């Protein structure tokens, strides 16, 4: 067993700024601080999350924006050129 201890260890109790890593740098799910549960406000109680968080109308909702406008125009163009082709063939 190794008993050498390197410098890059940080004790839990230290409150220095270096501990405040952003989630981007840190892959881990950080420890909850010691006093976190003293003013415990459950997400469940604080928001109406269970009823309101998830919506399911995405497959029915009609979006009207640049993308759909372009798509409509493109499809329209195609229809016309197909019609033209048919006319020519006749």
């Amino acid at each position, binding site marked *: 067993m190794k008993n050498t201890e390197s410098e890059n260890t940080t004790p839990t109790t230290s409150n220095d700024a270096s501990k405040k890593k952003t989630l981007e740098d840190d892959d881990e799910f*950080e420890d909850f601080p010691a006093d976190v549960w003293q003013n415990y406000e459950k997400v*469940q109680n604080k928001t109406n999350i269970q009823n309101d968080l998830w919506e399911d109308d995405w497959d029915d909702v009609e979006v009207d924006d640049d993308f759909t406008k372009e798509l409509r125009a493109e499809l329209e163009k195609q229809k016309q050129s197909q019609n033209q082709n048919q006319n020519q063939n006749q």
Partner: protein
Amino acid sequence: MIKIDSELGPTDAVDIDLYFKKKYSDSGFYLFLSATKKEHQCTFLLQSSDDKLAKLYNICIKLHAGAYNILSLCQEQVRIMNRISETETDWITEPLWFVCHQMIQYCSTDTAQLENCGRLIHRSFNLCLNDRNPVLSSNRKSGSYSLANLEFIIYHKLKNRDMMKNLVKVLQSRNMDIIMDQPSNKEKNSIKVGHMVRYYYYLGEYYGCFESDFNKASTFLSIALLHCNFNYKTHIAKILVLLVPFVIVSRKMYPNEKVLTQLLSATGQYGEKLFKFIIQLVYCLKSGDIHGYDKFVSSNEVFLLKNGIYVAMCHIRELVFLKFFKTCTKMIGNNKTIVPLSSIAEVYGNYSQRKKKIRRLINMKSKKDTKIPIDITSLENKEMNENMDELECLLANLINKGFIKGYLSHSNRCIVLSKNDAFPHLSSSL
């Protein structure tokens, strides 16, 4: 997670024997176990002649004096605590977690060190899990969740998925991968909720990121979210970055913008980025902007891989395509049940871009050899056929999954949609 009360002064004395007699722990006991250097603080008294307790006492005093080999002392401490715990009831699990957790804090990223610590914690985990005490209220098993979390932490640091898999297998074999009841005791509860949130987060991450079991992952992660402390936004963000894509894939539902704003308010840069990310994702899903989605995924590749949601995003593409196709059929319209694939293939193949590609190809060829004429129409036809093949493939999969009702006619290059309810409603409640 345990708060150490440092109000104890030099005149105070902490009776260690008492904790083992009365079978409880408080801040005095954690101060005793803590490895931080202590000067002019209270004294700790031990009268018991028990070998193991004496050994623990010596280790703790060495740590208090400010030892240079903190990690190896912490490992000794865990080892002796493991032996002590064998004959104690559930009260010991929280102190046991404390010393294990403390050991991790002093462990570097060195693989051998991490593995050593992992073995010690696994021993602690096992002696909790395999407690044969028939009195359930004092059985150490209740502590095994928190120790499993510490194992997860180590395996994450080791980036070792196999070890995680083994741990989950053990948990499965003991039916510990199901939603457990909450403890009734209020004070006990508050500590355990923290372990629980973390435990469900890890299980959700495991099933979603490693096993692609998005349904199971969604269940675990939403329990973690519901019980998380509302004020700890970074944890909420960390849960949501997995939960949102997993729920879209498995339950075909997306998050409400208002609630999302509430959950992610004041999360700083990461929260803002996550918020924008989710909004963009939801937009693609709603509009069926398949080209926008592909661009969105490729520009966020690193973020997706880092968070383990790349595979989920590939599954979501199928749903974005479904919406794209549905929108197209509506636009072609007039309630036609027979939809030719050619026109949709044109828009799906991002025609203008492909044309540019063909032109570039022609330019390249013409520079090399000007004598061979190039048949542009045949090149375009080839492109068109490839597009239609891809389209048929995607549609066949959607029909197979029951997302579209209808059938494909390959010879006519068209899809025949069911007269009623060709696009059934997909969501299933959480």
